[in-house]
């Protein structure tokens, strides 16, 4: 009973954690799901913070890519990618292998630590 392609990220979307943190990579019988989007609209795009439910815990995360086509010249990923984050904005993992869009650099002040651990940019 897999739902059809969910476009941008909203409540109850299954996401894919992309960094090398322990929480994100240890297998669990339920996939990580979004419970809340910190946005005026309930729809999260690249660069929005969301609340994730992983392994029975609540954790904040940053959206780095989604399946929904965005503005032209921006990349569209084949899976909804997310990076686990603390409340103050520090990422939990130490490395991000998957490519990250350059647009996140616009808000370098908030995401500088996440961009620092990212390897590839698209």
């Amino acid at each position, binding site marked *: 009973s897999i739902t059809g392609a969910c476009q941008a990220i909203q409540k109850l979307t299954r996401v894919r954690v992309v960094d090398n943190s322990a929480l994100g990579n240890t297998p669990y019988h339920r996939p990580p799901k979004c419970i809340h989007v910190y946005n005026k609209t309930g729809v999260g795009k690249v660069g929005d913070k969301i609340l994730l439910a992983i392994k029975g815990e609540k954790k904040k995360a940053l959206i780095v890519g989604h399946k929904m086509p965005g503005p*032209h*010249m921006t*990349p569209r*990923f084949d*899976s909804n*990618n997310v990076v686990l984050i603390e409340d103050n904005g520090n990422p939990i993992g130490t490395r991000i292998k*998957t490519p990250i869009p*350059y647009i996140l650099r616009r808000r370098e002040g908030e995401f500088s630590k996440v961009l620092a651990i990212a390897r590839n940019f*698209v």
Partner: protein
Amino acid sequence: CRTSSDGEPAKFQPPPKPVIIDRQKQREERRFLSPEFIPPRGRTDPLKFYIERKDMIQRRKVFNIPEFYVGHILAVTTADPYANEKANRFVGICIQRGGKGLGATFILRNVIEDQGVEICYELYNPRIQAIEVLKLEKRLDDNLMYLRDALPEYSTFDVNMKPVFRLDHEEVPVNKLQVRMKPKPWSKRWERPKYNIKGIKFELPEKKMKEAQKWNKPWLEFDMMREYDTSKIEEKIWKEVSEELKK
């Protein structure tokens, strides 16, 4: 060896004439009009399309947009204020060419680090600094959207690929590759005749293929209201565009 074996003076053999391959003629014979020049069917004033074509030709004079089809592997460098060295290079296979006029777009797909990435570029966007064709290859279909549901090996292309050298300016080779798909469910039901895809190796049971043929609409190709004959329009536009570009 002036004298031959007979003792008579040898007949003067003129040297063989050099064969001149007139490249310009060959190029003229082979016409390629980019699909975004052809105006869509409708009741808009042709003046609007004329003005758009003038702008498109202006842009083409400044920046060379090479001839490419769906299935080619391209490398696009865009100006990005947020990238280091201000330039961003993306290599990918062209899945689809859409839009008409100045808003013409093409989508490039590549798989980087096990993550499929697609970027929709606008042909006439001034942020684009260079488009290089790395490999010329037409595929059996006009629309390669099914690559999203195909095994990722068919969409991976090396980022540092060198451009494949091509001598002939005559024909673009057609790659008759049959792509293997991931197990169903797919994003669209590609086996249905509506999409008319020839480039997939369907490994579905015969029963499913027969069931898909239920949605076949064989009367559509004979529908006269849907006909849009572009040959004459293309001729006019080709003349206009080639004259303007030569100036």
